[in-house]
């Protein structure tokens, strides 16, 4: 997303002055010196992003939301710290130098109230979305997919060549908020270690809406409902049958190198590495994440000590759901299970994550995920 022009970022529309927020004096939120006639003096001690200090500037009117958001993953980035600690063996927050590097390189993904409700997020260089007017529901393109664009956004909107939009996407109707509630976005589930935390009660699931089709066809019965009489039937995540190929990335390095190599579209079924009451599936789709042992070399961490603790192919929830996919479409008389999924690794379908799909450095890390 190209950044806004400098003037455009700070241009305030007249109509803003008639809104609730516009009734406040500028300096009550932004500080500075409103009596100065010089640009430099007027901006001394300016608070460009007041909601960075939401307990001061927002809580007066929005106490409940601010309190809830204090533990929101968009604010805390707790998922980053959790996964880093799992692989590095220590909490980076205990190291001031590492925290500074983190803030510089990863902190752009930290979000404030304003970066969702009035401005574009910092990761795309900020700026007012609509002349300082606040939006209760964030803009899908200027806020949500500004950050979650290259994977989620492109999948959902069907912008990956050769693949169709998510069946839930209806322009100007079913935007992100159709599934993702305000409570979820504001951390309503309480402190979490990451988005797939088993305590994430606010996270949406397909079953929340589609439970009524649990026994709608033989495939659902065998892979979802699973009669007690047949204990051999595996429980599949919905996406195993209903997602299209999705984007995967190779190694990434801090210090400016970024992603090494091109991203690529693929689809892989693996064993569920995060099995829980909320995600009880035996098999899920897995996405390759851009991590390697020396990802943080520029921070002085040449080798992640516990690299093998977590798979590099992780549980994925692609946003490109279709009723008919390469798995479910039996047009042309392809009806045998072996022709679509149960190929035992012998056909060209190549849908299961096998050891042969892995690079040497990640074989050990993915033992809990690969299918023998």
């Amino acid at each position, binding site marked *: 997303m*190209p*950044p806004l*022009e*400098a*003037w455009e970022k*700070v*241009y*305030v*529309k*007249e109509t803003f*002055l008639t809104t609730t927020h516009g009734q406040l*004096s*500028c*300096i009550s939120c*932004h500080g*500075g*010196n*409103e*009596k*100065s*006639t010089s*640009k430099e003096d*007027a901006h001394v001690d300016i608070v460009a992003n007041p909601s960075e200090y939401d307990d001061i500037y927002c809580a007066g009117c929005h106490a409940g939301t601010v309190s809830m958001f204090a533990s929101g993953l968009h604010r805390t980035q707790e998922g980053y710290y959790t996964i880093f600690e799992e692989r590095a063996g220590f909490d980076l927050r205990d190291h001031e130098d590492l925290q500074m590097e983190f803030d510089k390189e990863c902190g*752009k*993904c930290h979000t404030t109230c304003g970066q969702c409700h009035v401005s574009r*997020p*910092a*990761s*795309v*260089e900020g700026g007012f979305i609509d002349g300082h007017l606040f939006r209760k529901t964030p803009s899908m393109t200027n806020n949500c997919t*500004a*950050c*979650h*664009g*290259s*994977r*989620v956004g492109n999948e959902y909107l069907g912008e990956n060549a050769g693949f169709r939009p998510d069946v839930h996407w209806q322009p100007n109707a079913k935007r992100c908020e159709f599934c993702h509630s305000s409570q979820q976005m504001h951390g309503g589930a309480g402190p979490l270690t990451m988005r797939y935390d088993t305590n994430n009660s606010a996270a949406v699931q397909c079953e929340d809406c589609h439970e009524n089709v649990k026994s709608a066809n033989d495939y659902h019965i065998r892979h979802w409902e699973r009669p007690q009489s047949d204990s051999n039937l595996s429980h599949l995540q919905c996406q195993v049958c209903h997602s299209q190929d999705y984007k995967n*990335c190779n190694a*990434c390095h801090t210090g400016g190198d*970024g*992603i090494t190599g091109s991203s690529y579209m693929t689809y892989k079924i693996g064993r569920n590495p995060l099995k829980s009451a909320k995600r009880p599936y035996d098999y899920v789709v897995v996405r390759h994440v*851009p991590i390697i042992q020396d990802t943080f070399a520029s921070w002085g961490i040449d080798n992640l000590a516990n690299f093998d603790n977590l798979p590099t192919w992780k549980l994925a929830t692609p946003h490109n759901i279709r009723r008919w996919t390469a798995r479910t479409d039996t047009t042309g008389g392809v009806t045998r299970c072996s022709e679509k999924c149960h190929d035992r690794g012998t056909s060209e379908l190549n849908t299961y994550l096998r050891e042969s799909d892995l690079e040497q450095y990640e074989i050990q890390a993915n033992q809990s995920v690969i299918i023998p």
Partner: protein
Amino acid sequence: MNQMKFFIISGLIIILMIGCTEKYPNKTETGDLVLTGSSCEVCHLDKDLLEEVADPLPPPAGDGGEG
């Protein structure tokens, strides 16, 4: 003929009047702002003024978000 002259001269006068209208009514001849309220609003509600005084942006830092 006289009528045409009249229209041409009238047109020129109108163009001159528009061209000489002060671009920023909140500025004095020396360019200082004349404040009737908050200087924040004087600048930030004026698109043309913002464009004129905006500092150039540094080059983009690269892809943000998911990369």
